[in-house]
């Protein structure tokens, strides 16, 4: 298996619960790989393992031919890996612009000559941040406090911040949760654009239309392992996928009521 990001035989248990069972997955350059599955299937655990938040019990994660299984979380951004979070992790009571500019941290630090107190709103960086904001239709909101914004907008801020890292591999954990159809269509289009520039994207989402529109491949995760992997149309047509995925969705909604 080749590609930018390779997850190899990763296993992870929490107590008696096996969240990931010998899971393997690859994302190539410029490829959008979708990942669907019922709640609790291990999607977020997988992203946490890739980004070093959770340590895998077995197996390895390789990024650009480099084993990153044991690499500390803060170094991953410098290796071109960025993520968004299923439960939003914005810097609250901070402006939208500042949230995005934290994503530029490494670029600030890399500027030469190195300066201890390089101004945090250097015009070049600010311009780039504004570009990202415009891209996510946040142009007028730069100075707004993120805590005052509606949910869908906050999601977009998080995507903008992840893009500010200029990632070569982007992990999106349910980026369109809570968004309107128009919003999520726009995000889908953006994901395709980002991939078009060579970035590999791993897209975890519950929205089959989004997956079908943006992904070249989609994996179905059930109980910690990939049950099926292939083109979205094919995969979604598989009877076992339909029963596994839709079946447990129904179960979940039952339990919720």
């Amino acid at each position, binding site marked *: 298996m080749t590609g930018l990001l390779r997850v190899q035989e990763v296993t992870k248990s929490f107590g008696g619960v096996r969240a990931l069972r010998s899971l393997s997955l690859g994302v190539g350059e410029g490829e959008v790989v979708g990942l669907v599955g019922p709640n609790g299937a291990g999607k977020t655990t997988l992203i946490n393992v890739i*980004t070093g*938040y959770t340590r895998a019990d077995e197996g390895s994660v390789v990024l650009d031919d480099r084993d990153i299984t044991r690499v500390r*979380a*803060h*170094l*991953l*951004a*410098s290796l071109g890996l*960025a*993520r968004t*979070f299923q439960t939003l*992790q*914005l*810097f*609250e*009571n*901070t402006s939208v612009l*500042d949230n995005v*500019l*934290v*994503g*530029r*941290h*490494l670029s*600030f*630090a890399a500027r030469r000559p190195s300066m*201890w*107190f*390089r*101004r*945090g*709103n250097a015009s*070049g*960086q*600010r311009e*780039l941040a*504004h*570009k*990202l*904001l*415009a*891209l996510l239709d946040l*142009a*007028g*909101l*730069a*100075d707004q406090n993120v805590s005052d914004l509606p949910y869908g907008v906050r999601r977009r801020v998080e995507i903008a*911040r992840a*893009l*500010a*890292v*200029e990632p070569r591999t982007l992990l999106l954990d349910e980026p369109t949760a809570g968004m309107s159809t128009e919003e999520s269509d726009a995000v889908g289009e953006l994901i395709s*654009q*980002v991939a078009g*520039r060579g*970035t590999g994207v791993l897209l975890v989402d519950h929205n089959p239309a989004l997956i079908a529109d943006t992904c070249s491949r989609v994996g179905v995760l059930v109980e910690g392992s990939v049950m099926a992997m292939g083109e979205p149309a094919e995969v979604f047509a598989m009877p076992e996928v339909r029963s596994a995925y839709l079946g447990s969705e129904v179960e979940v909604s039952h339990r919720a009521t």
Partner: protein
Amino acid sequence: MFNWVPAYQAFEISSTLITLLIVLSVSTLFECGIFSLAVGGFVAIGGYSAGVLTTKTSATPALGMMLGTVLSAGVALVLGLVVFRLKGIYLALGTFAFAQLVLLLASNWELTGSVNGIYGIPPGLGLGGLVLAVVALCIVLQLLRASYRGRAIRAIRLSERTAEALGVHVARYRLVLFALCGGLAGFAGACNAQLVGVISADQYGFSLLVTVFAFALVGGTGHWLGPVLATVFFTVLQQVLGYSGSQWEQFAYGVAVILVVALAPNGISESTPWRWTAARLGKRRPARRASLPLELHSPLGRDT
């Protein structure tokens, strides 16, 4: 420069400026989300090393001050390596234990004069020097605040893991800041020892912690000016009401902290009135109308 200030007032102002240095060392750590109770320990290390060096040897006060600063920073660095494995309340307890250890050592060691402490410490920085030190510190804090590092520090406070995912070396930032603030507290401790001339372990105990934390908490994490204003306000209040040193002093701090926690949980510098004022005073640039729809299809250039 400040010769015209009468001796008593000069002493009081100097002492306030020293307190301010200690408060800023605490509030700067708050800014990074570090709730450390070790400050008394660092002030003591600074005070004792300056005291011991200048009374037992013929070293100059300046040398004593430097030793106090460097030693505190060094100890903070080592302590940070150990204690940052703890989080939240456990970090607070760990750092508190350290401060107690320092005091225990100081009050039992012959070198530090055991319970009698050290007296006859030659004077060091005068009022002018302290004013200069505080102004320099405020300039540095402002530069830090406006820099990308300041933003990273605030990000660490708001969400450590997210900051880490965005490439901020959280562990290093916290450790370096802890060492610098330890050095600052040590510097203040040395200045205090040289101002007062007499030190003993009990003056670095719980009441110092209460005073400093009251000022820092009331000031808040929004801006370094908050703690500065809080310190000045409380000191003036103290002078006006003349309760300094009495049991009413601690009482006043208690009431102030409760009020602030109730009305502005993050301190005055993050309160709504402060933000409101700052937004109107500050030369806020109007939100730039990004003229970018044209570039919408090549927005993420690594070439930019």
